[in-house]
């Protein structure tokens, strides 16, 4: 799914990477405020939805080859994170929707979920 479609589904603001919305695609979504689990369960080419905004969110995404982050619940990251995202050409979106609503809309529109291994 293209980020431009995600932007419209979530009525999101684009904080970084407006020009890359039509060329960046994600295959799956993963929504969590627990980065420990993101590191363990997010697959590549996944869209990260989170309500945490500190700079380690960007670094976690970068390590996992996550192409884009959507900040939910009206949270917006600081300039330090945005600057790193600009440098890495990682589009950053922000929506006022809850994590539940944002995830539901994306899942309903066909964005797949990550497989959580049985442990």
């Amino acid at each position: 799914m293209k980020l431009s479609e995600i932007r419209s589904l979530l009525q999101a603001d684009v904080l970084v990477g407006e020009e890359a919305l039509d060329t960046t695609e994600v295959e799956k979504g993963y929504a969590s405020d627990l980065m420990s689990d993101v590191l363990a369960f997010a697959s590549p080419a996944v869209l990260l939805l989170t309500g945490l905004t500190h700079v380690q969110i960007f670094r976690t995404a970068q390590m996992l080859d996550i192409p884009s982050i959507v900040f939910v619940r009206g949270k917006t990251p600081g300039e330090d994170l945005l600057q790193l995202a600009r440098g890495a050409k990682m589009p950053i979106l922000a929506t006022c929707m809850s994590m539940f609503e944002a995830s539901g809309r994306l899942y309903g529109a066909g964005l797949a979920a990550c497989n959580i291994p049985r442990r």
Partner: protein
Amino acid sequence: MASPYLENFVVDENELFSIGEAAAQIKAILKMLGIPSDVIRRASIVAYEAEMNLVIHGGGGRMELEVRPERVKISALDAGPGIPDIEKAMMEGFSTASEKIREMGFGAGMGLPNIKRNSDSLELLSEVGKGTTLRAEILVKQEREG
């Protein structure tokens, strides 16, 4: 790559918002060396989790990267308090991380199991009061041409 590529990184204590700088450098080096992307991703996760452990548990320390054509080796060494029970530390959900780390969304006891899952071999040596050494290897499976 006739001889192995070696690099060392210093990881400072309590630099919570710098966690990942060494891992990001490791990732950039592996890209530059032309390592396959799935290997880079696994190595990056290992490096990031290991770097986080150095900062939040080890009182800072040192990381080593060793790259050979057939494998990537990542080591994290600290002179911190050590791990009293390694078997317990390897269990998912077991954590001794501080409240501050947990508020950041980390420290849920997933790190060492995640390092193990993303490595082909993992060695964890620790002595209470002396420190901890973690060595993880990720094999590069060469794709055959033709």
